[in-house]
């Protein structure tokens, strides 16, 4: 009897062929790539839709269950596009919600493999309402177990909002797309004609919308990328991220670092070269690489231990903090804080990006998210000022009063409210209108530069803890991490007295 029932689950060969013709794998094939061999246990295999449509089959278009990924337990669901286009009906949604609940109860990562046209139209409002259950669980799990969404096919409607509520979205560039309303519905609703790629392809979401964190060429690489990412993250918020044995000595000197970073603070360079030099060799995994590129965020290892890196990128927009890079940094900082990942911030920037376009689009509202996120975070927070830290960017990325634990600086670091010329123009507005104004201005600029454009003014008042030689950067960051290894923050106590904070959104 069981055998006969299982027989009915065999996929329709025509539909499988069609799936392959689109360059896509089936749900079974994807799970075989993701899960350790023989580890996967399927749940709710005989669940079927309540309504009676002709092609009704057990499983209801989604394979759910648990197993191990690189020997670590995880809960998964994989939507089956060959069954009613992967559409999300009531039972389909309840099955997904069930594995999410199990992931939460058992403190394990939850991985969704998405390939769905959205709510199942035939089932009406029940399909929508149970979608709400999935979203609520996404919220409940947030900050407790890491949640991942792999976008492997065209995803629309309710199939996009659950991924958007998870921690990381990975997309297969060839086959994946995300949109609220597909090209066909759009055409009939507003008359607009747009292609799938323009609406929600990999380029749109990795460069413009910022929705997707990691893009790979195809599905296989997407699943590999997920495994790589998982390697940096703990099972849940009560565990530490997985540490490796330290292969690369923490005392290694960074002899080439001064060839990477020009002494002249006006010359741009690629900060990724600095990250590669100071972190454990080959350990950096960049997140949001194509989005808001004036900031860099990602995971790396230091002496085998996982850390989160936030850095300015001087070769893009002078490394300025702008609307999108603020969102990118704030979300990354909050993720790291949720999952016990210490933060290292590498600073070389003159401030927030000025100008009408940024102000009108809300650079203050978005920029304040960075302040909130760093102030709220209780994980160890170490900042290094390489060449420049001015104004608001100094406060956001390096202020000890805001909550940064250790602030290091290179010997030529400039730390001030603003540049010398601008400061003198404001401080001596009246005198600069009189005779000998040019000479006076030059003197005052030199005076200002000598007083403020070095790390010692800040170090003398305790805003900078240490001035370090650039070639000893790795060693000093490593020692700071060690020193802060068992940090406990009293902010945690105060949090008990409120439901949640109100981060500016």
């Amino acid at each position, binding site marked *: 009897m069981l055998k006969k029932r299982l027989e009915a689950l065999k996929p329709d060969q025509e539909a499988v062929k069609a799936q392959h013709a689109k360059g896509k794998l089936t749900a079974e094939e994807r799970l075989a790539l993701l899960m350790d061999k023989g580890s996967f246990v399927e749940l709710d295999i005989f669940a079927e839709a309540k309504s009676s449509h002709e092609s009704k089959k057990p499983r209801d278009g989604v394979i759910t269950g648990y197993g191990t990924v690189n020997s670590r337990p995880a809960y998964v669901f994989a939507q089956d596009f060959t069954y009613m286009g992967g559409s999300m009906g009531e039972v389909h949604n309840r099955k997904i919600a069930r594995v999410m609940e199990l992931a939460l109860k058992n403190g394990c990562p939850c991985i969704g493999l998405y390939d769905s046209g959205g709510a199942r139209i035939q089932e009406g409002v029940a399909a929508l309402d149970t979608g709400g259950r999935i979203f609520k669980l996404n919220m409940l799990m947030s900050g407790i177990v890491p949640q991942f969404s792999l976008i492997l096919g065209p995803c629309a409607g309710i199939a996009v909002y659950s991924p958007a509520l998870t921690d990381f979205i990975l997309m297969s560039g060839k086959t994946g797309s995300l949109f609220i309303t597909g090209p066909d519905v759009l055409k009939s609703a*507003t*008359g*607009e*004609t*747009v292609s799938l790629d*323009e609406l929600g392809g990999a380029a749109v979401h990795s460069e413009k919308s910022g929705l997707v964190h990691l893009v790979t060429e195809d599905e296989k690489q997407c699943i590999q990328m997920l495994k790589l990412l998982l390697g940096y993250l703990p099972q849940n918020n009560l565990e530490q991220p997985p540490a490796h044995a330290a292969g690369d000595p923490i005392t290694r000197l960074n002899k080439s670092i001064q060839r990477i970073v020009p002494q002249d*603070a*006006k*010359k*741009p360079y690629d900060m990724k070269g600095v990250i590669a030099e100071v972190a454990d060799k080959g350990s950096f995994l960049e997140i949001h690489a194509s989005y808001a590129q004036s900031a860099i965020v990602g995971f790396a290892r230091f002496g085998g231990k996982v850390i989160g890196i936030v850095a300015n990128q*001087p*070769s893009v*927009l*002078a*490394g*300025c903090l702008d609307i999108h890079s603020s969102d990118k940094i704030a979300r990354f900082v909050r993720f790291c804080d949720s999952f016990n990942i210490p933060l290292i911030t590498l600073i070389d*920037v*003159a*401030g927030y*990006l*000025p*100008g*009408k*376009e940024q102000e009108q689009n809300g650079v203050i509202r978005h920029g304040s998210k960075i302040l909130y996120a760093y102030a709220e975070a209780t994980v160890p927070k170490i900042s290094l000022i390489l060449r*420049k830290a*001015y104004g608001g960017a100094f406060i956001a990325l390096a202020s000890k009063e805001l909550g940064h634990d250790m602030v290091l600086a290179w010997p030529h670091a400039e730390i001030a409210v603003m*540049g010398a010329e601008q400061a003198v123009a404001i401080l001596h507005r009246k005198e600069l209108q009189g005779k000998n104004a040019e000479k006076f201005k030059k003197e005052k600029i030199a005076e200002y530069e000598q007083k403020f454009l070095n790390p010692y003014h800040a170090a003398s008042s305790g805003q900078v803890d240490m001035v370090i030689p650039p070639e000893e950067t790795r060693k000093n960051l490593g020692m700071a991490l060690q020193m802060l290894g068992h940090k406990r923050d009293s902010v945690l106590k105060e949090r008990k007295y409120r439901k949640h904070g109100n981060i500016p959104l």
Partner: protein
Amino acid sequence: MDEIKVKIGGKEHKVKVEETPEGKLRIHHEGEVFELEPGQSSIPSEMLKRSGSGESVVVAPLPGIVHSVEVKKGEDVKKGQLLMTLVAMKMENDVVSPRDGKVKSIEVKKGQTVNRGDVLIEIE
């Protein structure tokens, strides 16, 4: 939806035009959509910039002062080649060519202040 050719700054562009249910004109150009009120004759400024950045016009990535111009009109340039530097936010920001081509015109001079999105150089 009709496809028509329009000339912007001497360069021809293919755009698709359609009328929305509200009676506005919707223009599709290289993946971007712009809406025009009926009777509006000017082209939206976003589209002008965009029609440029569609490979041939290089715009200022941030507000600043032109620090140096590294190429001459008529010069052949390669993708990634340094075209000019803009001083902004205490940094000499490199402006590089988006593609291989020839410098058609240089729209700014050394020392000039530019806003984000201003056209700096045209490449053909």
